[in-house]
């Protein structure tokens, strides 16, 4: 680096810490426009079953990405937190299981469900944060498995094996939010808000400190940070991202049952985050879209090839293996390393 830019950067008026934020790139604006105009050209099936589902799964995976990518804590409890919120909405609000559901109005049931799920996520975090690496994975997996088996066996509150059906998005402001287009915008809105929150928080003092703790917890304690409290707060924030997504997932399926919070879905969220890329908050959404497309279309493809449609898990598993082996930073990593440099070839040197 030449001397002149350095002197300029050290001048009092400049703000080096905000330089990384920059502006939103053109591609970002185009993406936002396409997503906003999607209902004008996409079918209802694509709006809800492909994009709605991908936004919801992506947001849950985003809460995992936030903890893993910025906090260095791989938590498998995020799907459970989301499912917990879904269960709470079914229990507190209305469902087909009238003898259990309390029938609270949605404006009371939804915030209460989110608050309880954040509490659940925070407590899970409090259990997990004193461990590291594989042990964090084990503890959070244990909590997820315990919750799964609990919901399956508990008939009186969690509705047992069948769970709750008939859990629907409410009607308010004269809009039926369970209709495809409004529901699409609902999912898009929370995905965008959650993404924006993560992008904001990781450059705020809280997020910066969290990354410091990820890189060097001992040093952070020696700088005056309460490492444990900071990590628990990160779990609380991640739960706040996942909980509304869990409610949206419940509305999307119209039901919540133990299968939603089973070990399979719990692992799927990890797979989504890893395939997409743990490095940046957009990664989980890329992973989720790919996952959803594979789940929907791999079956047809496999059947066309003369294989059993049930083998879609094999395709997803292979995708996960290939990602871990050849691009540990996910599809985003592939993009950053191979495609973007080519696109930006002639524009290089600006930094």
């Amino acid at each position, binding site marked *: *680096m030449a001397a002149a830019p*350095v002197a300029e*950067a*050290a001048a*009092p*008026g400049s*703000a*080096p*810490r*905000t330089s990384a934020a920059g502006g939103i790139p053109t591609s970002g604006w185009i993406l936002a426009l396409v997503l906003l105009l999607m209902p004008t050209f996409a079918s209802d099936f694509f709006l809800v079953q492909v994009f709605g589902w991908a936004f919801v799964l992506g947001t849950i995976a985003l809460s995992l990405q936030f903890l893993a990518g910025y906090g260095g804590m791989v938590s498998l409890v995020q799907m459970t937190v989301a499912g917990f919120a879904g269960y709470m909405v079914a229990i507190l609000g209305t469902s087909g299981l009238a003898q259990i559901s309390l029938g609270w109005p949605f404006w009371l049931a939804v915030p209460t469900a989110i608050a309880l799920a954040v509490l659940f996520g925070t407590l899970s975090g409090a259990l997990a944060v004193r461990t590291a690496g594989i042990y964090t994975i084990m503890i959070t997996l244990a909590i997820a498995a315990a919750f799964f088996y609990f919901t399956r066996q508990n008939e009186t509150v969690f509705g047992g094996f069948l769970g709750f059906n008939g859990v629907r998005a409410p009607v308010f402001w004269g809009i039926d939010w369970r209709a495809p287009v409004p529901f699409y915008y609902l999912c898009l809105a929370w995905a965008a808000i959650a993404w924006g929150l993560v992008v*904001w*928080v990781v*450059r*705020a*003092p*809280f997020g*910066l*400190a969290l*990354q*410091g703790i990820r*890189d*060097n917890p*001992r*040093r*952070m*304690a*020696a*700088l*005056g*940070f*309460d*490492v444990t409290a*900071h990590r628990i*707060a990160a779990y609380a924030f991640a739960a706040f991202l996942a909980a509304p997504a869990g409610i949206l997932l419940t509305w999307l399926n119209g039901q919540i049952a133990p299968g939603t919070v089973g070990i399979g879905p719990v692992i799927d969220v990890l797979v989504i985050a890893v395939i997409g890329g743990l490095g940046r908050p957009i990664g989980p959404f890329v992973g989720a879209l790919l996952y959803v497309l594979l789940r929907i279309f791999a079956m047809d493809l496999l059947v066309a090839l003369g294989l059993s449609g049930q083998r879609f898990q094999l395709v997803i598993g292979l995708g996960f293996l290939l990602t871990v082996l050849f691009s540990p930073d996910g599809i985003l990593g592939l993009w950053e390393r191979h495609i973007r440099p080519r696109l930006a070839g002639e524009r290089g040197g600006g930094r």
Partner: protein
Amino acid sequence: MAVAIAERLSATGQVNALELRGVTKYFGALAALSDVTLSVRPGERRAILGSNGAGKTTLLNCITGDFLPTSGTIRFFGEDITYFPAHERIRRGLRRTYQISLLFGGLSVLDNVYLACLGVSRGRFSLLRPRRDDPLLESARALVHAVHLDEVADKKVAELAHGQQRQLELALALAGAPRFLLLDEPAAGLSPAERAELVAILNGLPAHIGYVIIEHDMDVALRVVESVTLMHEGRIFKEGTPAEIEADPEVQELYLGHGHGA
């Protein structure tokens, strides 16, 4: 709370900055520290010398709370901090640097120092991004200047030269309002020119900031302290002024080797 602060303030200057009594640390059956009793006045600058394995770094780790002593008490400005978590000690004005730089390689120099300033401020959990004239950011810039790193303020720490990383390590320890520093071999791996700069930085610290410095390089150690403690196999072996220690024949034999004293 207010009373506690008043007590701490009134204690400053009257009691010892650091008061260790019978500090013992076992690792399994190995006694890394045996019955270490040591007091350092506020503003005093002291070197701890000793061969490898003498327990110097273990002693620092016990004082900062990286691990707890097996027995004994540690008082910091009169307050018993023996069982305090590390971050509580730091918030009371204790600071340390590490023998092997413990920095945040992926962050810029300024962000590293900003984190250190944040750690001893109230904004640790803040979700608001700092403004351009944020006081923490201003003090971070001032610290970067104090350790002569202005020119690399925006560089990633991983890109810095070893000597610059050592200077940054010192800047992190100076964040907030330090009352006492623990410096673990700050000159390790520095070139002669960088050593001279380190001596200048240490001697330029405000007089009220005392420190304990572990250093193998006598030329650095004896030039920046007023008292010396010698450790040997986990025990305190000898105490004195730099001149006394340098003149002591036993010490010369053990630690200074031949051909020293130029």
